[in-house]
């Protein structure tokens, strides 16, 4: 079977959330000498992009997204050593967390899955994260993007504190900031000085790709 056919099957396995097939097809592709980068881009990321589009348009929901993400991650576990060996780099590094005072993590976790699914390296600083934790993670990992999640009207304003902390640490010009969460709007994100707003996890991944290319809000 040609590589392209197997790659198509791998893409579909991710879309369908069939992790067993995703792992088997990834293994087969490696055995026949397919380039790890090609497997990642044309198999796994291509599949997650389809899922992301479906999620954004309401054609699929959280369970469908999660089984696709699981299939992608299990296949990536098989692929990762080869990616490292061949020097394939992530497209960028994102520090991600839920802001101080807020313990919600499902939005952040979905965002993390989509970001990894499209090729980012994600540094998850967890929930209830204070400003200095975000700042330190950005500095240590030389992240290009900082993503913050806030689910409550009472906690969303802390995102502005984090942006100030980045300025005080002389990091604001080196990192793009994206914010998401139930009460967050594009207007509010712009008002506090963020570079982008994510209405959902899949759109957030798209915005992060645009931020890497220099697009703003």
């Amino acid at each position, binding site marked *: 079977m040609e590589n392209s056919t197997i790659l198509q099957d791998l893409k579909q396995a991710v879309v369908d959330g069939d992790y067993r097939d995703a792992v088997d097809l990834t293994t087969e592709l490696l055995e026949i000498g397919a380039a790890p980068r090609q497997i990642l881009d044309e198999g796994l990321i291509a599949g997650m992009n389809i899922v992301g589009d479906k999620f954004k348009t309401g054609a699929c*929901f959280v369970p469908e997204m999660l089984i696709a993400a699981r299939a992608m991650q299990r296949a990536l576990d098989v692929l990762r050593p080869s990616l490292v060996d061949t020097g394939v780099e992530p497209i960028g590094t994102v520090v991600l967390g839920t802001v101080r005072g807020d313990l919600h993590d*499902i939005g952040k976790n979905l965002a993390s899955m989509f970001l990894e699914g499209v090729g980012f390296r994600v540094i998850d600083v967890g929930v209830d994260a204070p400003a200095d934790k975000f700042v330190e993670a950005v500095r240590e990992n030389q992240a290009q993007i900082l993503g913050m999640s806030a689910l409550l*009207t009472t906690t969303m304003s802390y995102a502005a504190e984090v942006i100030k902390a980045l300025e005080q640490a002389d990091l604001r010009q080196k990192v793009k900031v994206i914010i998401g969460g*139930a*009460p967050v709007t594009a207007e509010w994100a712009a008002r506090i000085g963020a570079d982008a707003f994510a*209405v*959902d996890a899949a759109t957030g991944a798209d915005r992060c790709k645009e931020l890497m290319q220099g697009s703003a809000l």
Partner: protein
Amino acid sequence: MNNRQRFNATMHYQPRDRAPITDFGFWEETFPIWYTQGLPRRIKYRYDKSNHVDYFGMDCGLDAVARSAEMRIGLSPYFRPKVLEDRGDHEIFQQTDGVRVLRRKFLGSIPQHQAHLLTDRASWQKHYKPRLDPDDPRRLPKDWAERVQRWKEPDRAEIVALPGGSLYGWIRNWMGVENVSLLLYDDPAWFEEMVETVADCIIGALAQALASGVQFDGCGMWEDMAYRGGPLISPKHFKQFLVPHYRRITDLLHKHGVDIVWLDCDGDISLLVPHWLEAGVNCMFPLEVGTWGADPIKYRQQYGKDLRIMGGFDKHILQGAPAQIEEEVQRLAPLVEEGGYIGFCDHRVPPDVPLENYVFFLEMVRTVWGHGVNLRPMGVVC
């Protein structure tokens, strides 16, 4: 009219003197902050005990209505709630549903799930299924007979509602949202079994209450299965797994004259409303407005009088200027007059709503929706 007559007339589009003036309660953190803004410290609010209703000039609080039957409809016995680890500002806590959470001690957020007892069929059989026996003697309160006698008195003023439980939200909490989402594909038969078991428990418990012959005024269910992006499961799965069991519950209720069934679900519920209506659930609560812009008026236009609504007053407007609060009260007034709608804050009032705003809101509500009723609010003058 007494509270019960007014509530039933409102929900059945019948003539009434005015709108019920009520609320859905407050965050735990709200009153401590309002004490610093002038609320007398003798005014207390807790879900199961409060004296705020008279102070604020309302007819009743819906928390009291929701717990009026004092039945245990879900897990029985509960898991023992206990602090497992003190982490200063946070603690790891085991809830009465068996879930271990990380929670803040003050200025709370929905806690973060840390560990779940419900992970597989074995743990379901061991920890949860035995707690879902409808015949557990603890399901009715010890003073059930006295309550029934009181509730059967003619001209009863008390609104008495049955608890209707939850078909998805409980299971989601017991397992975690990621695990239950994967389960829909990994073992749908087991998910279905759990839903059916929960429904059997709810129906068995409700049947005992309904057998008393009391005329209950409604039944309140809960799910919290949506967010700003819509439902946590697809409408297809919702229809496949949940609608048949909602139908079993509402059929039983209807058979005993309980025709108002409200469902508590935050987030954007728009994709699920038609399926709830199909299933016999005919009142949406608290109709969170959110960034998705839910609007009680638009819902009434779309679904007509079949759909009742409670809540729907945007909490963000309560945080804003008095003029905006008054404008929204006026905007919703025709819907209030039509009936089938009881307006209040679209969730528990959060601590970033100033006390003076909330007092002003209630003043407007009493003036406009309440036709100028004087419910004698004490202490604070607008």
